[in-house]
């Protein structure tokens, strides 16, 4: 099976990765008591992203980086999804 663009952009591996990056961190942002170790990847991405954004445009408040954060998480998820599809493809080829 050849991975389609659609499968890479919205396949299960892509969606699961996106949810894992965004949801635990989003819960912690809403209520600090809901921060868990699961939120750490999102936490680090947001911290680094907001640091870069703040260095470029110090005038913005730090919540505005939710927009690039979501975009970055999706980009990472697509990379993970594509890798996953590629690995699946290699495995299915070696089966033949």
């Amino acid at each position, binding site marked *: 099976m050849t991975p389609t663009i659609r499968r890479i952009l919205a396949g299960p591996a892509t969606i699961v990765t996106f949810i894992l990056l965004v949801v635990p961190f989003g819960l*912690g*942002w*809403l*209520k*600090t*008591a809901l*921060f*868990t*170790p699961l*939120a*750490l990847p999102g*936490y680090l991405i*947001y*911290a680094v992203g*907001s*640091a870069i954004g*703040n*260095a470029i445009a*110090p005038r913005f*408040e*730090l919540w505005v980086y939710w927009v690039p954060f979501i975009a970055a998480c999706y980009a990472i998820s697509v990379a993970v999804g594509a890798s996953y599809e590629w690995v699946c493809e290699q495995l299915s080829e070696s089966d033949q």
Partner: protein
Amino acid sequence: MNRRTVLGAAGSLAVGTITVATAVVRSRSDDAFVSAARNGPPADDVVTEQLLPDTVHETPIYTIEAPADGATVMVFGGVHGDEYNGIEVSHEVTEWRPNAGTLVVVPETDRVAVENERREGVDGDLNRHFPIDEEPTTELARGIWDAVERYDPDVVLDLHRSLGIFDLHQRYVGQALFHSADAPAKEIVASLNDVVPWYMPAHRFVAEPSTHPSPLLFKKAAHELGSTAYLFETTSFMLDQEAKNTFTRAATARVLARHGMLEVSMEVER
């Protein structure tokens, strides 16, 4: 096996560093320092006076005399009127019962700013009105400084709220304990970081010596009265009000403990 140990304040921080490992979520009930501060012996005396009575700045000042002799510690909240962690926690501190010394608390230092929920009061930013070796520049600042001189505190702690993270976001001070040169701030911060979950590494507190003279209340107290002075900052970045209050409370209790006001008892796991 649980063993209940009572430690003198001097030894308590080192042991506390090992034993008081709590997450933000649980620290409200588990923090041995806060619990020692809340559950100390009945005070010899609790007095409420008004600072700058019959003016727009009139604000209560609470004095709690502990049963034993010790340091005089002044805690200020609401120097900036929209920094609710300092205001709410210093109101709680008026209910604390230290074992030793005198605890003086001003929860709403800039009363007008607090009522308006704004950083600045009638004359602007109160924490810029205390030039070193000069008269404070406004009526409110002079009234506060008169009280500080009268109490002649060994320790001054001013509670604030910042934005962003120290060293990560330019212009922002994040989670920090600024302090005079003589302050044991590294030790206090090490113990305070036990309350910060390991998976929030950017939120670890830093101890920052602050010796450059500028017109801040804690600096004037350090320079002119020789007080050991602290300015505490917790951040709004990623933290809700409850978490900011937890950190502020934990920091205040640790400062009191380190200056001999609390006897910290804690459960030691064996």
